[in-house]
């Protein structure tokens, strides 16, 4: 199977995954107590007004009708309108997606840059001070939720380092440096737990690889220990890490939602939480759909990477 075919197959799979996700979300948001119409109108309203609004919003229809109606619009690329503001959902999402995706991407980069080298060092220096130090830090990363790390960062770095803002987001078109500084702390906050997980995986994977016969073969060939480690070991050790890196991406995406609140950034997370509070069903569905889309897309990229670094796997298996 060629690359193109493989990608096509994966994309078709992803459509079904996302369809499943939106169905679950559709059902979930409607099963939580609270009526968007009542929330919109406030306290004392008569039943007639309420019913009129419900009819206007289409909320008086049976659930399956609402579901299929929404699904049909979705197929044409229309995510519907917010029932609160009447603005198109897609527009609202695009407006705030920038900060979220920036933070998630930088968070991943920070996590990988820290986790892979420390994981390797930790494995090579097993049971030595370097190992204890990095596993302890990783343990903190895994144990502390992103928003808590965010708060600590604000208190420690934000207060002491003036050039790093602790509040708000600067779009990238106002300059790379201000943009970077505005997302640095939140990215670190979401990257740290993810990095902790990746580091532990890198460590155990590398420990396993160090015991492999081919590593002994490489040493028996007279290669230097660095070459043995990085030429013969690294790629093998990365194989399981890459797979899990895609799955654990959920940690980053989940982290961003909470971290945006801590840093006062108007991103997808705030949009999502706001829309849940207002029972703004189309907006909730649209936002979750986008997050699911990012997750699925990232996992396709991960799988492609995986086939690149593991010659034993060909697209679509069969080997």
């Amino acid at each position, binding site marked *: 199977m060629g690359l193109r075919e493989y990608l096509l197959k994966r994309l078709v799979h992803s459509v079904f995954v996302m369809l499943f996700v939106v169905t679950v979300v559709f059902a979930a948001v409607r099963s939580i107590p609270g009526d968007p119409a009542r929330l919109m109108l406030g306290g004392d309203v008569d039943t007639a007004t309420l019913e009129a609004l419900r009819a206007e919003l289409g909320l008086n229809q049976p659930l399956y009708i609402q579901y299929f109606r929404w699904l049909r619009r979705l197929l044409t690329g229309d995510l519907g309108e917010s029932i609160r503001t009447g603005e198109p959902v897609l527009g609202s999402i695009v407006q705030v997606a920038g900060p979220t995706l920036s933070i998630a991407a930088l968070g991943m980069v920070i996590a990988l840059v820290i986790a892979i080298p420390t994981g390797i060092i930790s494995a090579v220096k097993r049971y030595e001070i370097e190992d204890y130090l990095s596993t302890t830090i990783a343990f903190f990363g895994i144990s502390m939720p992103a928003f808590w790390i965010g708060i600590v960062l604000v208190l420690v770095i934000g207060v002491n380092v003036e050039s790093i803002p602790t509040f708000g987001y600067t779009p990238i078109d106002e300059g790379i440096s201000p943009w970077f500084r505005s997302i640095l702390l939140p990215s670190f906050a979401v990257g740290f737990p993810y990095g902790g997980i990746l580091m532990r995986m890198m460590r155990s994977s590398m420990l396993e690889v160090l015991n492999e*016969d081919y590593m002994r073969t490489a040493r028996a060939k007279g290669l230097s220990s660095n070459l043995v480690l990085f030429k013969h070991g690294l790629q093998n050790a990365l194989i399981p890490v890459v797979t899990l890196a895609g799955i654990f991406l959920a940690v980053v995406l989940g982290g961003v939602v909470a971290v945006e609140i801590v840093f006062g950034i108007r991103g997808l997370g705030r949009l999502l939480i706001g829309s849940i509070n207002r029972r703004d069903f189309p907006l909730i569905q649209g936002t979750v759909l986008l997050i699911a889309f990012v997750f699925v897309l990232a996992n396709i990229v991960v799988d492609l990477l995986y086939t690149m670094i593991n010659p034993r796997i060909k697209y679509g298996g069969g080997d």
Partner: protein
Amino acid sequence: MTDPLLDVRGLTTSFETGQGRLTAVDDITFQIEEGEVFGVVGESGSGKSVTALSVMRLLDDAGTVEADEVRFKGTDLLSVSESEMRSIRGGEISMIFQDPMTSLNPVMTIGEQIAEVVRHHGDVGERTGFWSEMRRKYVTGTSEGSRSWQRAVELLETVGIPEPEKRATEYPHQLSGGMRQRVVIAQALAGDPSLIIADEPTTALDVSIEAQILNEILELSEEFGISVLLITHDLGVVRETCDRVAVMYASEFMETGHVNDIFEDPHHPYTEGLLASIPRIADEREWLSVIEGTVPDLIDKPSGCPFRDRCDYAFELCDRPLVEYEIEGSALETHTVRCHRENEHVEVDDSGHVESVPDEAVAALERRIEAESARDADGGVSPTADASARADGGSRPSPAADAENGGDHGEY
């Protein structure tokens, strides 16, 4: 006689474990001549592989290797720097490991796994620094026009792999077990070695291709004048392939000699037991012959013969430290045995059982042991060097000569 290619004296390797000190290799001595195939045969856990890894200095920090001498072409392998050792590993001495599925790197092409040996040990003028190698591995790939790659393809052809150009670009999982072991052989030849250490090279393979692979190793080593240290548990393989053989049991060499002497005229009860346990087609017995009992615990191993608890011929001297006895009348090569039955004063009946142990036997043994410990004390060699001393089965032990030699040079 010229100096042997590899001269190992009093090699002892031990590991510190939670339960105590584990002696994996206990004071072994052997020499390998140029062009010779030397076999080490023994059951699993007897220390055969650790012997090889000790010589190559490939044990990690857990193992302690001590020896009076491990001399290869005049170089003391235990005292050279790590970087000199690296130029010997894969170059002068290369290794073939047991399982070709796990001993080849699954994410590297076969061609590159051979070519890197050529680059590091041959004279092809290609850069072998860390960053050059990393760029080759992760960015550019190995150039198929490079001399090292072309040499790798040639080597694949040499070891009998069809379509070597195509195979060189493939990964180990795309080849069968026998082909993979051929690749490992090509890899071992790539550095133009003088010695190949083959550690159970056919154990993981189907019986049907075992002979092919063994022949490949032997023919090529003969063609290129390479000595082979063949480690195996298979007596049949030893008989077919080796010039000389050492029988290893519980981390010690029990009997060493020419393969014909060992098979036709074994002196050590363990060797006899091993030979008796080979099933024979003409055999009338219903049951296979086995050696009763189990291998002794190698942790905090007591002195004396490690085989005495399983030995039918055990007698009162067996818990004394072992010394080496030379068997007279072996026409081919020196034949040595570490068993006190060979003590000239011990009287043995026709069935091999000890009849009586006169006082002279005990006295002679004590003199030998004393002489060896005295020699160790002033020679500055390790206290367990008795293996290198010589005690002829017939003649009087000569402590003075031993002391001068500081070990025995002409033993083989």
